[in-house]
């Protein structure tokens, strides 16, 4: 009964999505306020029904209703309740329902918080959200219904994939979807603006926090996925250039470009067409990611079961949404007024460089990811380009981006003097070079490339500090020293520096050793002494495990005791549960390989991973930067219904100081 209720709620949600997609849009075209006013109630209603539907599926998992096929596939009687809660999104069908729910949350937030924007504009934007909801609800309902019954009901279910029985994977998909779907807001704004025929700085200003928040969530989702892969897959790597990882990375890159181009459009009124295009691209790439993961056109470690029908559905949907938006763009963009020319050395040019580099990097990752399809289509055989391609190309493209970062905030809009900007960054450059050199000398084993990378990272860090110091020196009474926007930007840029340092160390100084160890043995790796003291049997709720007890000694002191496990789940899967002695400057990673000599000894993986935490710390700082910048009060101020003329910057610029980006 309850699952049917969930199904009915989903259908009602779909009907409301249709109402939302059609009525307000019609109202906006015909200028009928009564029709436009439907947008908000329809958004609220859609959310309520989808939430009910989602709650019903969760309920089915909680009460172990194995008459529901999806529950039977992804849960069993031994599964603890918290994994049953997260098992709702452990498979294809349920994770789609979560996608839909999050889309409805964003629509709800947009409807509730947008009262200061013109009704006509919001009616169109919410309609676009409705169209997206139609696509995803009907995709869920017609091709991947999670409420389908299994007749006769099973006594016990299968099991949730053990890889997913883990905290990292409980939170990873919701965060990732928050990011993916969050770009729908910027997309809806862009389409509404194109329908409107003009790009007001007011909507750009108003959409900036939304983009920042979506991008922040996406950053967090990707970082969680990477962290999970690191400790759960047992290989010690943190990024594999796997198609599914790339699928989330594509919208991230475009989203980063969008954040910067929106800043330019909002402040200077330029880059309008480009901002629209990036907003369309960010969400289209999120859809493309969904397609790649769920259609089975590419092989990946974590792809969902391949199904041509589902693939066709998403592709048609993608063609309608992205194709429609781009067609609208092709018609309307030429009518946008051209951007006023700017001098070559200006904040605009630097941000343009940022956008181009990020967009090219995105194209590079896209080409690399789709290459197997290209090769297949032209009969070149099944080939995929591996990590070497991505590693090289990405470094080549990102190096100039990183080097350019400190210039951006220091350079004034519409033109600045190269010499002045250089002079203000001279100290930062000097400190970065000294710091990089010292680090290179102190830590033997760093390659020249790594030393250069660290120097670049320090350059970003010191350059950011130089900007903050400058800002402080030129403070004026009665005005905030640092706005949220500025703090967020600086934090995100520092995050880039921390991330680069982490990558450089983790890639060049890591030590990976595989040794045969029996209880009582000890091994030395990278200055650590590892003692294998005991091998014992461990029983979990739905698995049994061989558990090793290892002491990690460093500098003659006991650092920690670790318990890596080799788990055998009751449903047959074998999993390696690595144990990590985590530290700010280095991780020590222990994983049980295979038993040797009839279980007398084990092949044990001992990995030394210096600075690996910095990789995720940097990502977290970028995320936090995105969130903080979204708190900028100026962006939430009620917008004046101004003409679209390229408005001057609203606040007088500080003397000899760049406006904030």
């Amino acid at each position, binding site marked *: 009964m309850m699952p049917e209720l969930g199904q009915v709620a989903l259908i009602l949600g779909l009907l409301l999505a249709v109402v939302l997609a059609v009525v307000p849009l019609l109202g906006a075209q015909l200028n009928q306020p009564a029709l436009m006013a439907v947008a908000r109630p329809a958004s609220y209603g859609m959310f309520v029904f989808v939430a009910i539907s989602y709650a019903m599926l969760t309920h089915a998992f909680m009460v172990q209703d194995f008459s529901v096929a999806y529950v039977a596939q992804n849960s069993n009687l031994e599964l603890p309740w918290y994994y049953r809660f997260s098992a709702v999104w452990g498979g294809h069908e349920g994770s789609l329902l979560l996608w839909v729910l999050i889309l409805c949350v964003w629509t709800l937030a947009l409807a509730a918080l947008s009262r200061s924007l013109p009704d006509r504009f919001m009616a169109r934007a919410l309609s676009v959200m409705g169209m997206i909801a139609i696509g995803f609800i009907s995709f869920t309902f017609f091709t991947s219904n999670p409420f389908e019954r299994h007749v006769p009901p099973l006594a016990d279910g299968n099991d949730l994939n053990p890889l997913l029985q883990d905290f990292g994977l409980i939170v990873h998909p919701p965060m990732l979807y928050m990011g993916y779907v969050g770009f729908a807001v910027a997309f809806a704004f862009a389409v509404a603006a194109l329908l409107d025929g003009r790009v007001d700085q007011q909507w750009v200003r108003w959409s900036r926090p939304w983009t920042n928040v979506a991008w922040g969530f996406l950053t967090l989702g990707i970082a969680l996925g990477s962290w999970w892969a690191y400790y759960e897959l047992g*290989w010690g790597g943190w990024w594999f250039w796997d198609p599914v990882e790339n699928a989330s990375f594509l919208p991230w890159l475009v989203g980063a470009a969008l954040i910067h181009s929106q800043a330019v459009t909002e402040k200077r009124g330029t880059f309008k067409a480009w901002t629209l295009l990036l907003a369309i691209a960010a969400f289209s790439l999120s859809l493309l990611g969904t397609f790649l993961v769920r259609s089975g056109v590419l092989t990946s470690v974590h792809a969902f079961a391949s199904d041509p029908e589902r693939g066709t559905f998403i592709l048609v949907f993608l063609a309608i949404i992205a194709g429609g938006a781009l067609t609208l*763009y092709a018609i309307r963009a030429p009518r946008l007024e051209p951007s006023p020319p700017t001098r070559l050395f200006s904040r605009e040019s630097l941000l343009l460089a940022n956008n181009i580099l990020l967009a090219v990097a995105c194209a590079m990752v896209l080409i690399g990811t789709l290459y197997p399809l290209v090769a297949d289509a032209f009969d070149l055989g*099944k080939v995929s380009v591996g990590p070497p391609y991505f590693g090289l190309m990405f470094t080549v493209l990102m190096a100039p981006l990183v080097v350019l970062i400190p210039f951006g905030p220091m350079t004034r809009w519409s033109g600045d003097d190269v010499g002045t900007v250089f002079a203000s960054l001279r100290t930062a450059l000097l400190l970065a070079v000294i710091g990089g050199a010292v680090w290179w000398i102190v830590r033997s084993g760093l390659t020249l490339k790594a030393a250069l990378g660290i120097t670049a990272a320090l350059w970003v860090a010191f350059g950011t500090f130089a900007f903050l110091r400058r800002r402080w020196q030129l403070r004026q009474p009665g005005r905030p020293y640092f706005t949220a926007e500025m703090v967020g930007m600086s934090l995100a840029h520092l995050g880039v520096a921390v991330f680069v340092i982490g990558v450089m160390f983790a890639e060049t100084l890591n030590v990976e050793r595989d040794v045969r160890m029996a209880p009582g043995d000890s091994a030395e790796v990278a200055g650590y002494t590892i003692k294998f003291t005991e091998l014992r049997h461990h029983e979990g709720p739905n698995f049994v495990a061989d558990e090793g007890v290892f002491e990690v000694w460093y500098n003659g002191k006991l650092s920690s005791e670790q318990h890596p496990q080799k788990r055998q789940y009751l449903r047959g899967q074998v999993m390696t549960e690595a144990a990590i002695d985590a530290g700010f400057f280095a991780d020590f990673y222990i994983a049980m390989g295979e038993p040797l000599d009839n279980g007398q000894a084990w092949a044990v993986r001992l990995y030394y991973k210096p600075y690996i935490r910095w990789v995720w710390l940097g990502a977290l700082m970028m995320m936090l930067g995105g969130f903080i910048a979204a708190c900028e009060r100026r962006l939430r101020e009620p917008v004046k219904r101004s003409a679209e003329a390229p408005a001057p910057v609203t606040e007088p610029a500080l003397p000899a100081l760049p406006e904030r980006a």
Partner: protein
Amino acid sequence: MWRALIPLIVFALIGALLWSGIGNDPTLVPSPLVGKPAPEFSAPVLNEPQRSISKQDLLGQPYLLNVFASWCPACRVEHPVLNDYAQRGELTIYGLNYKDLPEDANRWLAQFGNPYAGILVDPEGRIGLDFGVYGAPETFVIDAQGTIVYKHIGPLTPADIETKIKPLLQGDRSS
């Protein structure tokens, strides 16, 4: 006007590409070798350079030739599956250590287990070339007469073995 059309055109091209990919099982590559006698091979055995295994040595019983390498992450995914089936004696699996170094391969096997009845060493990928190997992992099913009856690209799952490989082998044994 023209410039504004570029994104749409790019998107259309990508869309067409994706369309062509739908329904093609990415792990299924039509191999011209399926149904033909396996290419002749003779290669030294890992850790026993003086011994070698040739196609003739393996005639008389069906076996799997699994292309693996220590540098191949997907091989780690399928490896427990191979270990399982080899341990239960359900499959005879020979390994082709493809474009790899012996010391890397040994370390890798110590870590992940060794399901192979014998491992052929193919450091330059010559045998791989004869078999039309695109990458690792790939698995060839070769029957008692030395004919390739199936080729699998990508990691093997228990489902692949049960539904695609075992039926072929059973037919072979009974005949």
